[in-house]
């Protein structure tokens, strides 16, 4: 350190400022806004060039909630797969799931809500029991205080606006009776 300090001298041309007494300076910009990148978007890219479970989303777009069943061992999976975790077979078929189920558990997101959803808080998010499977889902048109375990709910499909270039869909549920 001592040696180094000895060379640090205002007369050292390598260390002093330029003739005007200032170092060059300019402004560089970063974008103030960017389009939501796909990878920061909760909704999966749903088309066949992005995922091998595109058929699930195509069926959903057609109004059907489906999942995969193993043609070898008969196991029903959810979420849908391309390989059966029970027997490692990869010959799977899409089968229909019920569109009506019951609330198994539920809460309402009122704080600590993730990006992209915080503007819609509060919302109910639940475990829906469809018999063969359980899944998590948002429950629209409902408030926590009006719901009970075991309440019937039925399927609703939402079209996703924005984000990825392709048109996308997802499923939610509503208290039964609100649909028809």
């Amino acid at each position, binding site marked *: 350190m001592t040696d180094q300090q000895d060379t640090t001298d205002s007369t050292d041309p390598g260390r002093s400022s330029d003739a005007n007494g200032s170092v060059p300076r300019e402004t560089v910009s970063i974008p103030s806004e960017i389009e939501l990148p796909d990878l*920061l978007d*909760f*909704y*999966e890219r749903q088309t066949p060039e992005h995922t091998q479970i595109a058929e699930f989303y195509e069926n959903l777009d057609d109004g059907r909630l489906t999942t995969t069943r193993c043609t070898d061992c008969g196991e029903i999976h*959810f*979420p849908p797969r391309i390989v059966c*975790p029970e027997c490692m077979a990869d010959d799977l078929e899409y089968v229909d799931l019920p569109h009506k189920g019951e609330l*198994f*558990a*539920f*809460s*309402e*997101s*009122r*704080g*600590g*809500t*993730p*990006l*992209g*959803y*915080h503007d*819609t*808080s509060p*919302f109910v*998010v*639940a*475990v829906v029991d469809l018999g063969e*499977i*359980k*899944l*998590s*889902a*948002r429950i629209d048109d409902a408030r*926590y205080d009006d719901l009970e*375990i075991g309440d019937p709910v039925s399927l609703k499909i939402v079209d996703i606006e924005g984000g990825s270039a392709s048109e996308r869909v*997802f499923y939610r549920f509503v208290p039964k009776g609100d649909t028809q």
Partner: protein
Amino acid sequence: MTRNVAIVGGGTSDWGDRDASWKDLAQEGGKATFDAVPDIGPEDIEGLFVGAVQPERFANQTHVAPMVAELLGIDVTEMIARTELACASGQAALRYAWLAIAAGQLDTALVLGVEKMNLGREHMPEVQSSMANVLDREFDGVNGLAAPPFFAWYAQRHMHEYGTTREQLSKVAAKNKTNASRTDFAQFQSTVEEDEITESPEIAPPLHLYDCSGITDGATGVIVMSEEKAREVTDTPAWITGSGQSSMAGNSINNLPSFDGWPQAREASQNAYEQAGIEDPLSEIDVAEVHDCFSISEIIEYEELGFCERGEGGQFIEDGRSHLDGDVAVNPRGGLLGCGHPLGATGVSQALEITQQFQGTVSSDRQVEDATTGLIHNLSGSASVHSVMTLGRDPQ
């Protein structure tokens, strides 16, 4: 294998909403660790294990283990890794260090857990969205399912199945926040009365704000050593006597084994107990640092760790059996509810607390008398993994 392995000591940064970057925290935690173990310096470290969950999202940085090596001047000669197991990442780092030392690969390791989570209030939704990614993002996170409503389901189901009460949840939170008032690095050092808990905002009913752990910046480290080397440093290390993990081919909602219990915690703890020779956990374990990410979690953990029967966790806290002077002191440090939860640092901090409980160096008002057997537990993600490690004042 295997050799005896010990934690000889460690240190921590202050935890909280810190005016500090990820790298600042790593340096503070590293310095505190080496300061606490003066016989060991960076030049002695052969293995470095860094617990960190989401530096990619919270600090826009990956490959963080070599960054820590540089910041702390460590030439790693044997093994370097960053571990990610969501909220159990720190415990996973400790487990890797234990295995590497037990296997004879190295003698001296630094385990450092680091997380930077507070990015300013305006960025909180972004932080929460990163947290939701620890679930199956495509089918579960996509529903806006962050941790509070997920654990609220468990509270609802536990109440439904077993009659657990809202008051019992409050008793857990009040206990841990009282304990944290005696922990000088804790994020939340104010005691909270039971009725204040249900007066706090409902984040995800039936859970209120004070039922939830914090969003926390912090870094904590421990030095882990082989028996031969540890005995050169201290006469009172904490010996790692058992370590178990369990995950049951289930991570997304449909594939979780239960919504009112965690059989993975039961299996992980039984594996650890078997290694440690623990037959009756309630009578043999003096001090336990368990993953109270939410108040309901601790109630379920009493049951699955074998402190009481399934469904009796609410009564267990109501009877005060997990208090400092109870049958087993649970979360004397203040737990995640009191200390906060800098994800990657939590497991390391729990292990340091047990070590310091054995060494008698914690604040005297949270010292568990004659503590000789301890436990740390962490769940992670959708509680799909449970990790349990037993520690003893004597090696096995």
